[in-house]
């Protein structure tokens, strides 16, 4: 009888272990349905835009009735775009952005919750600067192997793109947006941490703009500095660039376009070194140019910011496609 009891006890114990393992496996599998393993996250299927039908299917799996969308919470899936969500729900892109405080569509993340609300209105002056066709991004950098890789077989179109944009591949940053923004906005306070999905031009510091321009620049004669006070720009001339255009490029982080505007505004016949100063005045950004002679006086005070810029550049180039072979790995 004692043996039987022991046997029963052992069988029960074994069953409990197996059951708990099965439950744990189920839980992990469910949790991974959005995030997934690094291998799954990097899979190309996650970076193809979902069709509205796929979004509808995803919503059905989350038990969301698209006919009753009054503050329903939807977990953003890989491949989702604001466009596809809008078409699947019938809620306008502007409404989705307004309800979810999205001002930059490049910043929707797989795994984040999107509030779906058909009721309510969007203020007339709400004009999010978005690209609704960008797929959901990742908050965590995807990597489980070598930190830097080299892709040596590249489509001709990409080679031409790099050639035409003159080493612009350094603007490609192969790590998560949230990691990038945490570096770039380290000086900001944390009061807006609950709205990390969005950013606006007012959230971007002058140092970010200077960094962005430095990375976009390929002209040795141009350098970029932050104008701390009016003494920095006393000998500089303000460039004739519309402040709205500057704000738009800054908001989009389209520093290539901003750099083009700066070059257009500069005197193309002037071969001297030019320092571009960026100054923030309230909500407006002003850009000034100073030729080499007038710049020398202020060099001392700007040395530290220069070194910071260089650090950022080298960091960025380490992540770029064309990094040198010494640390690269490839699977041949």
């Amino acid at each position: 009888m004692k043996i039987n009891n022991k046997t029963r006890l052992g069988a029960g114990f074994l069953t409990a272990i197996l059951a708990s393992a099965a439950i744990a496996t189920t839980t992990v599998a469910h949790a991974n349905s959005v995030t997934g393993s690094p291998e799954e996250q990097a899979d190309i299927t996650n970076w193809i835009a979902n069709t509205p039908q796929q979004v509808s299917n995803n919503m059905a799996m989350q038990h969301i009735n698209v006919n009753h969308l009054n503050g329903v919470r939807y977990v953003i899936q890989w491949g989702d775009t604001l466009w596809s969500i809008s078409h699947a729900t019938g809620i306008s892109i502007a409404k989705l952005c307004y309800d979810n405080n999205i001002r930059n569509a490049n910043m929707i993340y797989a795994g984040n919750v999107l509030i779906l609300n058909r009721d309510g209105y969007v203020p007339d002056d709400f004009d999010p600067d978005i690209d609704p066709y960008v797929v959901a991004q990742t908050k965590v950098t995807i990597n489980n192997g070598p930190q830097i890789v080299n892709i040596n077989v590249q489509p001709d179109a990409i080679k031409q793109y790099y050639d035409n944009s003159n080493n612009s591949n350094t603007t490609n940053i192969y790590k998560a947006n949230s990691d990038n923004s945490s570096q770039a906005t380290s000086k900001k306070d944390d009061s807006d941490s609950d709205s990390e999905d969005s950013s606006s031009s007012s959230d971007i510091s002058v140092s970010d703009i200077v960094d962005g321009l430095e990375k976009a620049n390929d002209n040795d004669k141009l350098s970029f500095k932050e104008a701390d006070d009016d003494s920095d720009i006393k000998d500089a001339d303000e460039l004739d660039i519309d402040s709205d255009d500057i704000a738009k490029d800054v908001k989009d982080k389209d520093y290539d376009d901003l750099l083009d505007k700066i070059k257009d505004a500069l005197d193309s016949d002037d071969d001297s070194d030019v320092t571009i100063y960026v100054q923030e005045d309230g909500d407006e950004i002003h850009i000034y140019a100073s030729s080499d002679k007038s710049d020398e006086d202020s060099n001392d005070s700007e040395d530290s910011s220069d070194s910071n810029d260089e650090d950022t550049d080298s960091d960025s180039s380490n992540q770029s496609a064309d990094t040198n072979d010494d640390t690269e790995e490839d699977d041949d």
Partner: protein
Amino acid sequence: MRKGTKIVISIIVALLVIVGGFYIYASHAAAGHIPGHVYEYTSVSGNQKAYMTFAQSGDEVIVTPDKNKALQASNSTADFEKVYKAQAKEGKWNYKADGSKLTISKTQNKQVSLWQYNNVLVLGKKMHSSSFTYQIANAGQGLDKKATNFEQIK
């Protein structure tokens, strides 16, 4: 050396040559097999599909979760261009097959992402890759030693 031994060695050598030759052929056949065809791609997890219509000439490829759209694009060059242009707002896709590698790129908002499939073996209508190297804009880069499969559906 005995005659029997010589025969065995000859057979082994012949088999090695055949297998080696087939491997070399299969591992360098992607570039010749891909143009103008539609492939069904199965993800690492095995539960996701994507469809890729490769241009008859050039380096453009349509990558979509919509099988019908992929098949429609393969009907003619005009259909391909029509679908490719319609999908450009969601990113432009290009490809390059060279040796045993197949790279697919996505360009959107001046950001380039690349997936290079390594050790691609062409086995009839199927292509098998043992790993892929990726550089995804604003996401990450690395090497995944997970197998993926492509199957020609048209």
